[in-house]
């Protein structure tokens, strides 16, 4: 069912494309970095209600911004199927005698890698800005955790893209999916500050657990327990990958 060679070549293609599109790399990293710098320094001395007195706002913000970067780059990586459809390349893949599940997994693997590279880059840049992490192992665990977060959103992007015929619904998705997910996740402020009704949506937002888990690993402060965050994101990533592979399998090439 899953042909790992096919997974590998689709991953390889994503990587090649990624490293060739330098403007895209900087473009997608620019927004999270701007958020990080301006919000981090702008609100740095403020006491944001709901944040423990032991950590400053910058420390609170960095995991949120990493989560933001993962959300954006992962979802876009998943949506890249739409571009392939637009440029015709999807047909080339779809007539090949290989299982579509392998193709879907290859794309997801490629998407995870590219968004992980950006997530880690932001983490490293934030270290230069004065962010402190709790040691080497938390750093490694946070990267594994980021992988799961990326998998979730690449899969969501891919699932949506497989059902879309053209690029016209694209901005709709960004406005009505990505931004709400971002704001609901508590990346910029603690979700306890949100009204109760709004907060209940936060609980079904995978990024909530993603950001909270990263905070747990990197800063040592989290709303939910680390175990619960890892469990939640594992379940989310598992389900979304299965569902999107299924949707991709059933989608039409033309």
């Amino acid at each position, binding site marked *: 069912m899953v042909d790992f060679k096919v997974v590998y*070549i689709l991953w390889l*293609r994503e990587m090649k494309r990624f490293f060739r*599109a330098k403007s895209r790399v900087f473009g997608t990293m620019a927004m999270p970095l701007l958020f990080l710098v301006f919000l981090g320094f702008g609100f740095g001395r403020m006491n944001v209600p709901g944040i423990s007195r032991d950590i400053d706002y910058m420390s609170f913000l960095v995991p949120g911004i990493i989560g933001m970067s993962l959300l954006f780059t992962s979802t876009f990586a998943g949506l890249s199927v739409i571009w392939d459809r637009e440029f015709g*390349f999807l*047909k080339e893949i779809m*007539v090949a*005698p*290989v299982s579509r599940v392998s193709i879907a997994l290859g794309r997801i693997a490629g998407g995870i890698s590219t968004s992980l590279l950006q997530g880690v880059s932001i983490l490293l840049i934030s270290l230069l800005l004065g962010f402190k992490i709790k040691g080497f192992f938390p750093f490694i665990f946070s990267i594994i955790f980021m992988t799961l977060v990326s998998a979730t959103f690449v899969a969501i992007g891919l699932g949506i893209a497989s059902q879309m015929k053209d690029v016209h619904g694209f901005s709709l998705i960004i406005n009505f999916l990505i931004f709400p997910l971002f704001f609901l996740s508590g990346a910029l402020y603690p979700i306890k500050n949100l009204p109760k009704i709004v907060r209940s949506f936060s609980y079904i937002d995978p990024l909530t657990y993603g950001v909270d888990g990263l905070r747990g690993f990197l800063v040592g402060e989290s709303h939910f327990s680390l175990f619960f965050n890892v469990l939640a994101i594992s379940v989310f990533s598992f389900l979304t990958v299965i569902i999107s592979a299924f949707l991709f399998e059933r989608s039409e090439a033309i």
Partner: protein
Amino acid sequence: MDKIINKHMHAIRVEELLKKFNGFTAVDRISFDVSYGELFGLLGPNGAGKTTTINILSTLLKPTSGYAEVAGFDIRKRRDEVRRSIGIVFQDPTLDTKLTGKENLLFHAMLYGIKKEEAEKRMKEVLELVELEDRADTLVEKYSGGMKRRLEIARGLIHRPKVLFLDEPTLGLDAQTRRRIWDYIKKLNKETEITMILTTHYMEEADYLCDRIAIIDHGKIVAIDNPTNLKNMLGGDVVILEIEGDANQYIEKLKELKWVKSLMVQNGILRMSMEMGERKIPNLVNLAEKSGVKINSVNLHKPSLEDVFLFFTGRKIRDEEGEGERREWTIREMRR
């Protein structure tokens, strides 16, 4: 030397193939066979159902009903085997423009399970065939239209398919490039003995390349034969008269003439076919005078596929629909 066409083995068999999209019939119960080694053409205007047929045969679309097999495999039940046996050059480019020519080929080869060393070897072969060796390391986005087409042909061949589909292989290319692509296709078909099925709406292309042609219109095959026979169907030369006055009497008289093999009328223009047209024109002129019809111009030519198409469909192939009034030819008659 003539190439080998095995008439007893069918590379493609199509029986009563039907495809409907939300009530619109794109392919209307067509049937045809293609022998191994043959270069077979589907000729018809845009929207005739050619691409839909190719998409069904290449397993991209499922037929509504009917049966088809490619390289001996049922296209519904043995999709993977069909996919392994075919190569496709799509109508629109399907290359990854952010990869180089070589990378596109390598990606394709690996997708078809070809080992790396073997893939490298075959890549050299196909690049040589389409004369792209020196541009192989350039990003495809820098390629010209003709180069992209050639790369796609090379890609379609790298896994050594039994059947190669070419959907409008020269669409949008300039006349010179078109010629070159034609020569590649002809050479390939001759040298590799790969069965090829190509769709086109260029008459010259079908005429120049194909061993056999199916003329397709509104989803139906209206004629199928080799180019020579198709042209002979009209029975001799095509004579076109532009006339003035009441033509009814004249037309009645023309119909009585045995040597007028076919006759079509469209406001003020008569299209006929006859043997040795140049000797018959005086008769036609005399008869017109007797019938009180004035002839404004006479045109005589050897029949082309365009004439054949016009005869079978009542339309010129390049007539765009909705462009003013429909230019249907009214009276159509043929004797054999």
